[in-house]
């Protein structure tokens, strides 16, 4: 019998637990209520770094059991190692549902695990629920954001990757007397074909990572040139936010493709998104329309960006932005 919900407790390069884990934990509480209050468990990979802190956080976020794979060999993420250990655990504890954050790591690990277990996986979901038959109902955007689909799964575990920052974390602590279980595993039997040679940290236009920023100042072709993007960078700095770009701006080499927002770039959900000189093509808006508040500045009053903007300003970015920056600084 499949039972319980398992969550992939992803940590970053410094062993810090990712926010999406806590978002999943809260959603799992809601799902569990509809599944006879089933257990909510996690699998955590670690080399020991930050382990006590992470255990502490997990027990304040309502986890019943945390399965820990602890080895110096697990310091670097490896799909080959991580998937093998995850698959073995799932075969052993047979969860009903397995949830993973839709990060670059999660979106590589999840399909490998799902295919190995011969089960189904719904990608990059924005909403999870339990239907009247007790099945996991995963809802996600498709067709470049033009269509939403709710997807069910015939096999166990029912798996989904879930987009970060869309679901909310718990407001209060949900303290559990969490049981921590050290996993036994043997990595020597696994042939590792992929090796990390080097990691180069991203030199983004701002100090804040675009996928974590609460405020994003994004520019399009309307920012015209490098000086235009320097204005955005200055504004992002005073606001403590990050800079984003449309594909138009990336194609003009005004910004690096790593900060492109949209269908072929990143999906972002900041509290505030300021779109400057961006026309608002569907391929762009699909990546930012989930933002809490959208402010758009465009000199064309018919620009489609105004259809998604909460506050639309018809005007010239080169007149408005310098004044705005001055006022914020002053």
């Amino acid at each position, binding site marked *: 019998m499949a039972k319980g919900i398992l969550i992939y407790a992803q940590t970053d390069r410094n062993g810090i637990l990712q926010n999406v884990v806590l978002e999943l934990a809260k959603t799992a509480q809601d799902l569990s209520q509809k599944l006879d209050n089933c257990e909510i468990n996690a699998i955590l990979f670690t080399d020991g770094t930050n382990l006590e802190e992470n255990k502490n956080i997990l027990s304040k976020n309502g986890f019943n059991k945390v399965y820990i794979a602890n080895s110096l060999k697990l310091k670097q993420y490896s799909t080959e190692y991580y998937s093998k250990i995850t698959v073995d655990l799932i075969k052993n504890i047979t969860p009903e549902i397995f949830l993973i954050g839709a990060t670059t790591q999660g*979106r*590589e690990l999840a399909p490998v695990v799902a295919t190995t277990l*011969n089960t189904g996986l719904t990608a990059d979901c924005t909403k999870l629920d339990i239907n009247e038959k007790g099945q996991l109902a995963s809802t996600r955007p498709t067709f470049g954001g033009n269509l939403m689909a709710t997807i069910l799964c015939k096999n166990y575990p029912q798996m989904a990757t879930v987009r970060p920052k869309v679901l909310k974390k718990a407001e209060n602590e949900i303290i559990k007397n969490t049981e921590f279980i050290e996993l036994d595993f043997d990595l020597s039997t696994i042939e590792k074909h992929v090796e990390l040679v080097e990691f*180069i940290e*991203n030199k983004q236009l701002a100090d804040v990572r675009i996928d974590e920023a609460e405020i994003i100042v994004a520019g399009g072709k309307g920012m015209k040139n490098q000086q235009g993007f320097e204005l955005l960078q200055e504004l992002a700095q005073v606001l403590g936010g990050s800079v984003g770009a449309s594909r138009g701006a990336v194609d003009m080499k005004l910004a690096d493709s790593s900060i492109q927002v949209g269908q072929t770039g990143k999906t972002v959900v900041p509290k505030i998104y300021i779109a400057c000189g961006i026309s608002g093509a569907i391929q762009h808006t699909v990546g930012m329309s989930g933002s809490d508040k959208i402010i758009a500045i465009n000199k064309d009053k018919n620009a489609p960006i105004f259809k998604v903007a909460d506050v639309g300003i018809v005007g010239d970015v080169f007149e408005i932005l310098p004044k705005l920056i001055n006022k914020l600084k002053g």
Partner: protein
Amino acid sequence: MKIAVCVKQVPDTADIKWTENNTIQREGLESIINPFDMYALETALKLKDREQNVNITTLTMGPPQAEEIIRKAISLGIDDGFVVTDKKFAGADTAATGRTLAAAIKEKIKEVDLILCGQFATDGDTAQTGPAISVNLNYPVITYVKEILSVENNIATVKKEVEDGTEILKVKLPAVLCMLKCDYEPRRPLIKGFKNAQKAEIKFYGLNDIGLEVEQVGIKGSPTYVSKAFRPEQKQGGEIFVPDNADDAVNKILEALNG
């Protein structure tokens, strides 16, 4: 070196129209090669440009009309290609698609060193097919690949883009790589390419050619199914403000930032 590139024909999502019943109007929707697959093709062609003895095959699973995109790939310089097509493949999710493509590669290409996919298809947007192919063939996979830096002694060195930066990874071949939008533009076909594409004999393979059972493919072989599809809530645009001057605009923005 033998490279297989998986390409998918997708509707141009820039051009979606709705029927009265809130379903997507598929007639008249133009089909294109999935934009990410264009980068997979270009990456394969770049390897062919700089290395000796590279042979590239491209394949797609889809209706017979998908032949069109195989010809397009050949016009760009890909050596040959085939369509994996059968009514029994209809309704496949990524698990069934991955299994079908993996079986087709194994049966029809045999010794392959590198399989290139796009990172996402713009219609399904799941990013799961490449990894599913890799597991079926028992090959390693790397996703979010920006560039192949080198292939030497059966080892590929690649650049992968992640949230906090770039990873340089080495992978032992054969392997599956899923390509992001690269920093280079895909090439355009030459006249010679068009001629090759016209002449090329495109093969079609069905279920019986790839050694799978009917329960393993299409809707029967798919663990997931769509229970409901609906149009997303349309966001209502807010107020549009035409300020008298820049100071007015600034005040309005400050108000919005604080509110």
